[in-house]
């Protein structure tokens, strides 16, 4: 983290002193431009990828589309910027993008030092280790002296050194920029261990030819609450992002899906559903949007659970169970504040 803070803070200082302090008025900027600029990762199975038509898809991407639908009424009015672990914060801080949705962990220093506002947790994750079965290792405690592939500019880098120090073990880091690079190095035996968010490991493992030859070790060494974020200083814009995410979660709780959203808006008796879908009250106006902003977003990408199942769920190759990411009524941690 230390490495990152200096350039970003320097950048923030420039931004503050120069004319270009593009903080306030992001909503107006986006509406004027007619497109939302959203930073995603350079490619991580399930989270962001391109399909055969060159369209971005994925769990992180869906969120960008939901915001674009809510703000502009068009889920396709998004310009995606692929970013690496290192470039993502500078891209956001410099105003190159409006919002960052790239499996980014919410931490104190990113919030306070880098001056970003996190909009909630879209995925509860934790850092894990993947090794080849042939290594004969069954626990992270046996990794003393291992070479570890690790993405620079991430929390993973810091957790790793914390963990190995605490366990009194040593390791040899092999720094990489992107997940694709990590995957290639790991498969080429340039490192014994690949460590990153467990979701990322599952996603990478899903891409291996012989997935069964690799195991993800049981230890999860950190908390990695991943979520979207925006720059400090534009509370309205942060509220918009936060409530689009919350709306997707509430929709799942209430059983609103992309398919039945219109019908629910018209017929539901539940006052919260009616407020959420703009059938009653003036809820959207408070954040500068149409009252049916959540309806449009949900129609575009579905509710939280739909997006999850479509890209990450057990029906997909990534094959992640809901686990901590189930709604709270089903034993998970996804708990959106009430929409009133």
């Amino acid at each position, binding site marked *: 983290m230390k490495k990152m803070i200096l350039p970003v803070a320097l*950048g923030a200082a*420039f*931004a503050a002193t*120069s*004319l*270009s*302090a*593009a903080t306030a008025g992001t909503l107006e*900027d986006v509406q004027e431009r007619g*497109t939302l600029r959203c*930073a995603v990762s*350079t*490619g*991580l*199975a*399930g*989270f*962001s*990828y*391109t*399909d*055969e038509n*060159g369209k*971005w*898809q*994925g769990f992180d991407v869906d969120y960008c589309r939901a915001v674009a639908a809510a703000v502009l009424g068009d889920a396709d009015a998004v*310009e*995606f*910027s*692929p*970013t*690496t672990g290192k*470039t993502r914060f*500078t*891209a956001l*801080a*410099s*105003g*190159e993008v409006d919002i960052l949705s790239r499996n980014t962990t919410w931490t104190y220093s990113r919030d306070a030092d880098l001056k970003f506002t996190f909009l909630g947790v879209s995925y509860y994750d934790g850092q894990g280790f993947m090794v080849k079965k042939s290594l004969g290792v069954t626990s992270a405690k046996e990794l003393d002296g291992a070479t570890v592939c690790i993405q620079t500019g991430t929390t993973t880098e810091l957790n790793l050194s914390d963990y190995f120090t605490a366990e009194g073990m040593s390791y040899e880091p092999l720094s990489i*920029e*992107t*997940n*694709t690079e990590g*995957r*290639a190095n790991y498969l080429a035996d340039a490192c014994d261990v690949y460590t990153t968010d467990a979701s990322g490991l599952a*996603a990478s493992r*899903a*891409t*291996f*030819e012989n997935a069964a030859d690799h195991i993800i070790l049981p230890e999860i060494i950190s908390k990695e609450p991943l979520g979207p974020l925006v720059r400090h200083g534009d509370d309205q814009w942060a509220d918009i992002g936060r409530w689009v995410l919350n709306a997707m979660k509430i929709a799942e709780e209430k059983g609103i899906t992309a398919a039945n959203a219109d019908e629910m808006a018209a017929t539901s008796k539940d006052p919260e559903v009616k407020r959420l879908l703009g059938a009653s009250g003036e809820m959207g106006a408070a954040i500068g949007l149409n009252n049916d902003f959540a309806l449009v977003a949900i129609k575009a990408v579905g509710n939280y659970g739909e997006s999850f199942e479509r890209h990450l769920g057990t029906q*997909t*190759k*990534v094959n992640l169970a809901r686990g901590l990411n189930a709604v709270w009524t089903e034993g998970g941690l996804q708990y959106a504040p009430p929409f009133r």
Partner: protein
Amino acid sequence: MSETNFAFVATSDKPQLPAPKGTTGAIGWVRENLFSSPMNTFLTLLSLFVVYSTVPGLVNWAFVNSVWNANSLDECRALTENGACWGVVRERYHQFLFGFYPSELYWRPILAFALLFVALVPALWDGMPKRGLALMGSMTFPFVAFWLIWGGFGLEPVSSTQLGGLLLTMIIGVSGISFSLPIGIVLALSRSSNLPIVKSLAVIFIEFIRGVPLITLLFVAHVLLNYFLPKGVNFDIVLRVVIMVTLFASAYMAEVIRGGLAALPKGQYEAADALGLGYWQSMRLIILPQALKISIPGIVNTFIGLFKDTTLVLIIGLMDPLGLVAPTLADQRWNGIVVELYAFIAFMFFIFCFAMSRYSMYLERKLHTGHR
């Protein structure tokens, strides 16, 4: 006396004997070129072994056992054990060529590409009739291409985020190449100039740019510039990158050309002075034509290097062919397909780089007029 017959003086040539067997024909060639010494014999056998152990496997993989008609890696693996899965290339080659450019507008970059060759003709063909006029026409190419690719003025606009693939490589590479040569010449002349201010400015610029990695300049283009521009001014990212790449290549170009200038014998400069030519005249008529000719291999080297360096833009999130690999790989249908993608990209780059180096060899031969 006159009748004396000196039989030992031949009156006509003896018929030539054929060269000893084994020094001519196929065998001779093989002997001379492949087995002329123990070392050569060893190297020949080694090479044969390498060819034997790689080529059949490669051909099998790439052609014999390969699969074109599969819509996912699983489907492909079911059809072939050890063949290439070109299905991904079939499905996405247009992305690797054009990025996310709208497919109904592909004709625009294609037309721009065709016009590039039209514009190149006057520059490459020195015997062309009305060359001066044609060159002026070529000068308008950058503007026409810009208009065709980005649209506006009656054409549907296309945003920079939709540019990608080889199209992006070409945009950056071609602009970098064509702008860096003139800038490089000016810099090289400035650096060898007698005017202290001009000279030191050139030295500072060149040394600064050469002292900084290209990736740093790209980062500057990507993020830092945004901090300084006034709010609302949207300075296109591709344009920023083109400028940085051009500056970078110009500094190297300047040094290559300075090498050419330095290689000219002093007599050439003095001869130009003796003829009473002014600075610009002597440069244009005597010094530069020779210096540039000497520098051709270096210049083309810089071109090719620049063309390949364009792949660095993937670090700042531009979708050049290499940048497209990651999001393609992340598609669940093509999870894990790596070699095929890189092989295809390597093939595309090879075509362009090889063409450039061939052209440079042709140019060298053509200009090899006399001395040395």
